[in-house]
């Protein structure tokens, strides 16, 4: 019996998404944290607050992404006090880049920074491995994102409504969860716009079913005790 790797470093295989819409951004993520093959946390929250108006989606090493976002939150807090007004998404993203780039030899984390500020509105910045910073209309990351490139190439469009953007994000994370073993659990979304921040939660059993997936049942016994189908008549 080969030994299972249950003591591996905590890594969020993950699917993370950030999407801009007409008026703000929607951030989305799955909720699985694995150590090797064991799911250490099936309900993690990978969308972390940096300021009132800027959040970050974390992927890769759980430890690295947590400590990085802790540092950025700390610096942004001081920056906000000194500035006298909310930090912009661009500043937050560039702080993330600074830490990611300067510690590139030690960190293994890909992040998506998203938020809303009064100057630029809703913005999404991708900070992949290495510390590149790229402003994008939408960003996908984590191991599950491999399965979403084609999906987004097909369905993405500019100027969606808030409802369209959120349902796109939920659909996408759910598709990634279906195929990526390192992603799973629930879909969490965070919507950020001029009116504030809204957190949403979509449990696994409310997500749509994809190819070769079947509806959940309470028990086999329910299926057996169901009335058998009528014979067909000519």
């Amino acid at each position, binding site marked *: 019996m080969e030994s299972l790797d249950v003591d591996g470093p905590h890594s969020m295989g993950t699917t993370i998404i950030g999407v801009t819409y007409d008026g703000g951004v929607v951030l989305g993520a799955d909720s699985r944290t694995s150590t090797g093959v064991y799911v250490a946390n099936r309900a993690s929250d990978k969308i972390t607050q940096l300021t009132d108006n800027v959040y970050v989606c974390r992927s890769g090493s759980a430890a690295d992404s947590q400590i990085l976002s802790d540092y950025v939150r700390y610096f942004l807090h001081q920056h906000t006090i000194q500035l006298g007004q909310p930090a912009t998404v661009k500043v937050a993203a560039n702080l993330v*880049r600074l830490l990611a780039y300067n510690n590139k*030899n030690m960190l293994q984390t890909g992040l998506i920074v998203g938020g809303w500020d009064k100057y630029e509105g809703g913005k999404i910045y*991708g900070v*992949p*491995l*290495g*510390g590149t*910073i790229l402003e*994008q209309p939408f960003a996908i990351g984590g191991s599950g994102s*491999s399965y979403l490139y084609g999906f987004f190439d097909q369905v993405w469009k500019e100027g969606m409504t808030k409802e369209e953007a959120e349902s796109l994000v939920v659909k996408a994370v759910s598709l990634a969860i279906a195929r990526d073993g390192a992603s799973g659990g629930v879909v969490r979304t965070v919507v950020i716009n001029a009116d504030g921040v809204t957190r949403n939660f979509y449990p696994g059993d409310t997500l749509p079913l994809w190819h070769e997936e079947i509806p959940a049942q309470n028990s086999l016994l329910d299926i057996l005790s169901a009335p058998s189908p009528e014979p067909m008549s000519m």
Partner: protein
Amino acid sequence: MEFAPKQDQSKNPVLIPVDGPIQRTQYPYVTGTSVVAIKYKDGILMAADMGGSYGSTLRYKSVERIKPIGKHSLLGGSGEISDFQEILRYLDELILNDNMWDDGNSLGPKEVHSYLTRVMYNRRNKFDPLWNSLVLGGVKKGQKYLGMVTMIGVNFEDNHVATGFGNHLARPILRDEWHEDISFEDGVKLLEKCMRVLLYRDRSAVNKIQISKLTEEGVTPFPPYSLKTYWGFSSFHNPTVGAEGSW
């Protein structure tokens, strides 16, 4: 560096550095492919695609890899994009400090190229390179300049330069068809020919290219566009007829 004597696995005596872990050379994550540039009649023409690859995935398709530097130069970068972005910050600081002298002088392309060469070579000596190949082109006081630096500090200037695959696919074309005082139109057509070959033959190439022009008057970045490709050759239609299983 201080060393201490130890024994390796085969009991051979070796010297191990004492102060801290050995710094290893990193590896690139998000990379850009070739940059191609030529001198032409009025200045410099530079072309690069807008791709940022993540290993074999063509992950980002709107990465600007050619940027103006000061008033007189254009910088094109291939290799790790995060390092290219950091180099842009270094150059920003360099140009800013140069402007602050407020003495009527400004750094020309030769000087910027020299600065970059020093930075790249010194990083290489510390085994901590900036993982890029850079093309630096410019015009100052009528003098055209076009130079190249790699991540190990190899640098030279020439009438036409390219990075990465461009060295193997584009430069032979340029050696054959480039000539002194080539016009803007011919220059653009020549660059497009090079970029098309790269698109066919470089698997990290992306069909969205950016050409920038630099003359004494300044930098003109042209909007990104895509190249037409040609597949209508009769030998492409049924290449394995008469030799089934071949390719």
